[in-house]
C-alpha cells in the first residue's frame, strides 16, 4: 500500500485532527491522499458526517461530487451513468448520506474485536481493495478469486452481466468445494 498505508489518527470523537471542518464549515474538496487503495478514506474527515451534511444533503451536485470521487478512486471502470444516478437519487430522496457515513464513526469508536473466522469463508479480491488484513483472518477455508480488473461495487462495471456471471460462478464453485471437502486457493 506504499505511502498510503492505513492510518487511523487519534482524535477526539468531536474534532478532526486536520481541522478541515472546524466551526462547521465544510471544505468542498477531497483530502490529499485519498488513494486508489482506498486507505485514504481512513484519513478522510468523513467521521465528521454531520458537517458534510451541509452540502451533500442540500445540493445534489455536491452529493454527486463527493460520491463521484469515491467511484473514481475505488473503481477502474466508471459505473454507467444511469446506475450512478439511481444510486444518487436513492441517497437523495431518503436523505441518508449522513446516516450512512456514520458507519465509519461507529465502527471506529465502537470497534468489533477482530477474531479469526471459523465459518467457511470465501472472499473475492478486486482492484483497489485492502485484502491482506482480511486474508489473515480466514485460515480455515478460503476460496480466493483475484481479479486484476474490477471494483468495489459489484454491479457497477460497464459490463455488469459479465461481472455478475463471474460472481455467480465463483459462488457456485465455493459451495462445490465446501461440500466436497476441498480447500481452494487460487
Amino acid at each position, binding site marked *: 500500500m506504499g505511502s498510503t498505508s492505513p492510518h487511523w489518527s487519534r482524535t477526539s470523537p468531536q474534532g478532526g485532527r486536520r481541522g478541515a471542518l472546524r466551526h462547521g464549515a465544510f471544505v468542498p474538496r477531497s483530502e490529499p491522499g485519498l488513494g486508489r487503495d482506498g486507505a485514504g*478514506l481512513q484519513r478522510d474527515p468523513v467521521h465528521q458526517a454531520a458537517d458534510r451534511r451541509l452540502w451533500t444533503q442540500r445540493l445534489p451536485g455536491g452529493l454527486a461530487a463527493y460520491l463521484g470521487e469515491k467511484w473514481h478512486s475505488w473503481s477502474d471502470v466508471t459505473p454507467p451513468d444511469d446506475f450512478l444516478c439511481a444510486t444518487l437519487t436513492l441517497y437523495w430522496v431518503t436523505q*441518508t448520506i449522513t446516516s450512512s457515513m456514520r458507519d465509519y464513526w461507529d465502527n471506529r469508536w465502537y470497534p*468489533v474485536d477482530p477474531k479469526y473466522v471459523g465459518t467457511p469463508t470465501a472472499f473475492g479480491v478486486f482492484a483497489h481493495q485492502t485484502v491482506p488484513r482480511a486474508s489473515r483472518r480466514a485460515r480455515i477455508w478460503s476460496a480466493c478469486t483475484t481479479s486484476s480488473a474490477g471494483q468495489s461495487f*459489484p454491479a457497477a462495471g460497464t459490463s455488469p452481466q459479465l461481472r455478475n456471471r463471474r460472481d455467480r460462478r465463483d459462488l457456485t464453485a465455493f459451495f462445490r468445494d465446501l461440500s466436497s471437502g476441498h480447500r481452494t486457493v487460487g
Partner: protein
Amino acid sequence: MEPFRIHVADEVLDDLQARLPIRDGPTRYRHRLGQGTELDWLRRLVSYWAHEFDWRAWERKLNALNHFTREGIHFVHQRAASGRGVPLILTHGWPSSFLDYVDMLPMLEDFDVVVPSLPGYGFSPRPLEVGINYRYVSERWHRLMTELGYSAMVRAAMTSVLGCRRSLQWTIPSR
C-alpha cells in the same frame, strides 16, 4: 414482516430537479487524482441526472421485486425458483446500496436471496443511538434470516474500503 413498495412523492423529485443545475463551479485547475471529482465529468453526470435519467422507470423495475420491512430493516427477498434454495444474504457497502445487487438477482435463482439495506442506508433508517457497528448489523442479519425461517445461511458482502474484513466479521455468528 410488512410488504414495502417504493414510491417517491412528486414534490420530492421536483425539489431535486430544481436543485440539480450546477450554476457555479470551482476554478478549473489541472485535475489529478486526489483533488476531488473532475469537473467536466461531474457536469456531464449531473446533466444526465437532470435531463435523461428516469427515476420512475427505476421505481417500476424495483417494484417488480418483493420488498419488505422488518423492525426498520428494508430488504428484497427472492426465493429460489425451486421453492427452497440455499439462503444467501447479500450486503452492500458504502457508498452503495441494495441497488448493487438488483441486476444480479436473475442469475441467483438457485438461491433464496435476501438483499437488505444497511441501517442508515436507503429505506432502512439508522437507529439514533451510537455504536451501530458491524456486530450490530451482523446480529440484525442473523435475526432477520432466522425470522425468515433460515437456520443456516451464507453471507456475502461487497464493501468499499474495509473490504473483506467487514464481511468476514459478519460471518462470525453464523452457524
